[in-house]
């Protein structure tokens, strides 16, 4: 089969734009005197490049074939050097369809075939007609189903809508999308800056205080609006369907993305809440599969299956896709809280020392830094209270983080390695951590870790978890 003809034009224009950009940046400054020859030359150059790249892209298109067969997906391409790639069907995890606004105008789509492991997308078809894209998704799905004959067509045909993001929820998502850490950072920087300015110009104290407060306020609003807009564009009209044994989502305003999450490949469920979401009782659900998701991948981590919904609804949903008993989490030892406080207090003391030092040279309002001590106590408590872990019958649970609290649910049969570790600092307090390593998308993902638990408990938990892992393999 062939790619869409529109892709010739699209890619040619892409090439020319890239060339033009280089031209503008490099040569434009030398064209200060506009004479007719120069314009003609530029025009000539422009037309030549356009026709050349059109011609080239035509050849690329002409030499590009793909076949979707029982054995797998086969791609033959190459104008000068001929390439042929075959991807076995069972290795394909996802078929992702992505369309940006230009694609949508032209009625084309980019298809990415994701496989487990490897650092990148295995194959991407740029570009096919939208209809064809749907056909490919459908065909791969059907072929994959045929491969597993033991699973008959008991599952209902067609797709069922599982979740749709309501306008109210989209609004809440935008409002709560603020990055609390960034704002706290801003407060800290501007607070210190304010202290600095305040002590520099004493006569203007009131005005500068007002000015820095305004600046702070503006910065907070600005970052907030920025992330709200991103969320709005990304999750506009989010829909989650269930088709056979996979979840399929559609989302986005300008860039309409679609993708699938094969239920049989789920490695981990993560429920996320920042403090704002916790306050109104809402959560986000992310699902991690072993596949490599197209554009999300490294920076953003796994795909959201539910961008935002009431916490009870999210938990109900997790029970639907993974069978586990209640999320029973136990807290980590109380001495962990003392240790956190100790760490923060030491950091505060260092900062206070720096502040006093700075005051000698440039004038610095260091007494304000004393406030860091009560803050340390609050921070230590919040870190402690938001940490937890639990060993269920078939799943392991971990919870961590105040700014973005992540509750992870890991099936025992997904465990790849079990790692118990103890740093020098932990050793002093008889604490350890237990990491459940699972097959993942990237090294940057957050692992499921039960952090700062009692050392004996950690060792016991490691043995128990390993036994549960062995048992879970028998039940597969």
């Amino acid at each position: 089969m062939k790619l869409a003809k529109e892709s010739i034009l699209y890619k040619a224009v892409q090439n020319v734009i890239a060339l033009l950009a280089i031209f503008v940046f490099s040569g434009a400054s030398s064209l200060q005197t506009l004479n007719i020859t120069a314009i003609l030359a530029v025009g000539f150059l422009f037309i030549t490049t356009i026709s050349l790249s059109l011609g080239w892209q035509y050849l690329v298109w002409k030499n590009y074939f793909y076949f979707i067969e029982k054995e797998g997906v086969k791609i033959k391409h190459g104008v000068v050097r001929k390439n042929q790639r075959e991807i076995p069907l069972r290795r394909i995890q996802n078929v992702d369809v992505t369309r940006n606004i230009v694609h949508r105008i032209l009625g084309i789509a980019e298809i990415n075939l994701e496989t487990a492991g490897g650092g990148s997308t295995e194959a991407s078809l740029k570009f096919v007609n939208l209809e064809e894209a749907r056909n490919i998704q459908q065909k791969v799905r059907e072929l994959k189903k045929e491969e597993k004959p033991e699973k008959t067509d008991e599952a209902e045909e067609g797709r069922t809508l599982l979740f749709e993001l309501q306008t109210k929820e989209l609004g809440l998502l935008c409002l709560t999308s603020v990055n609390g850490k960034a704002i706290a950072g801003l407060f800290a920087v501007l607070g210190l800056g304010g202290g600095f300015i305040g002590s520099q110009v004493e006569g203007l104290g009131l005005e500068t205080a007002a000015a820095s407060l305004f600046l702070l306020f503006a910065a907070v609003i600005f970052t907030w609006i920025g992330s709200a807009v991103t969320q709005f564009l990304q999750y506009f009209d989010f829909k989650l369907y269930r088709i056979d044994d996979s979840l399929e989502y559609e989302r986005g305003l300008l860039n309409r993305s679609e993708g699938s999450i094969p239920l049989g490949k789920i490695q981990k469920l993560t429920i996320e809440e920042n403090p704002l979401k916790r306050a109104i009782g809402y959560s986000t659900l992310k699902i991690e599969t072993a596949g490599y998701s197209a554009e999300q991948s490294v920076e953003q981590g796994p795909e959201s299956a539910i961008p935002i919904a009431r916490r009870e609804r999210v938990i109900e949903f997790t029970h639907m896709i993974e069978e586990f008993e209640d999320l029973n989490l136990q807290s980590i030892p109380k001495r962990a809280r003392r240790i956190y406080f100790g760490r923060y207090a030491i950091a505060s003391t260092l900062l206070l020392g720096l502040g006093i030092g700075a005051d000698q040279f440039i004038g610095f309002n260091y007494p304000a830094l004393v406030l860091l001590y009560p803050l340390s106590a609050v921070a230590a408590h919040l870190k402690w209270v938001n940490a937890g872990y639990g060993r269920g019958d078939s799943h392991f649970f971990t919870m961590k983080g105040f700014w973005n609290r992540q509750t992870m649910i890991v099936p025992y049969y997904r465990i790849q390695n079990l790692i118990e570790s103890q740093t020098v600092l932990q050793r002093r307090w008889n604490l350890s951590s237990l990491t459940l390593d699972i097959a993942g998308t990237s090294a940057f993902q957050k692992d499921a870790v039960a952090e700062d638990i009692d050392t004996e408990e950690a060792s016991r938990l490691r043995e128990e978890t390993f036994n549960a892992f062995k048992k879970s393999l028998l039940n597969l």
Partner: protein
Amino acid sequence: MRKPEKKVLGIWLLQAFIPTFILSLGLSWPIQEYTRAGYFTGFSGAFVLISALAVGYTVYRYRAWRFEMKEDHLYLEHGVFRKVYSMVPYVRIQHVDTQRDVLDRLFGLSKIVVYTAGSRGADVTLPGLLPGDADDIQRKLRDVAIESEDRDAV
């Protein structure tokens, strides 16, 4: 519990030499500033000091390292500042390499790298093995991995 061969200490000491040298260069300046010693004296002092630390670290590193092929998993213990106890189920082993880099060959040693699909356990390394032993362990690990191959790892 098996331990790496004692010879591996030689490799680890050599590996520690370069950072030791660089650190000593860095430290020699403040030392001579404060003690008004000559540059060479400052450097030697720093070098002796840091070398002692490096030797201590390496010895401790050796003492902490041990591993064992248990019934159904590979068990490892290592780490100086961060002590690590890890369990790699044989079912999860994707493939097993033996590797010999220049230093290994110089000391007549070999090491084994066990790959799983895990994100961070991607390279579980057993250092300091005699080449014959390494081949043995590799074969054993391969066999136990094949034995339990049927189940889909991801």
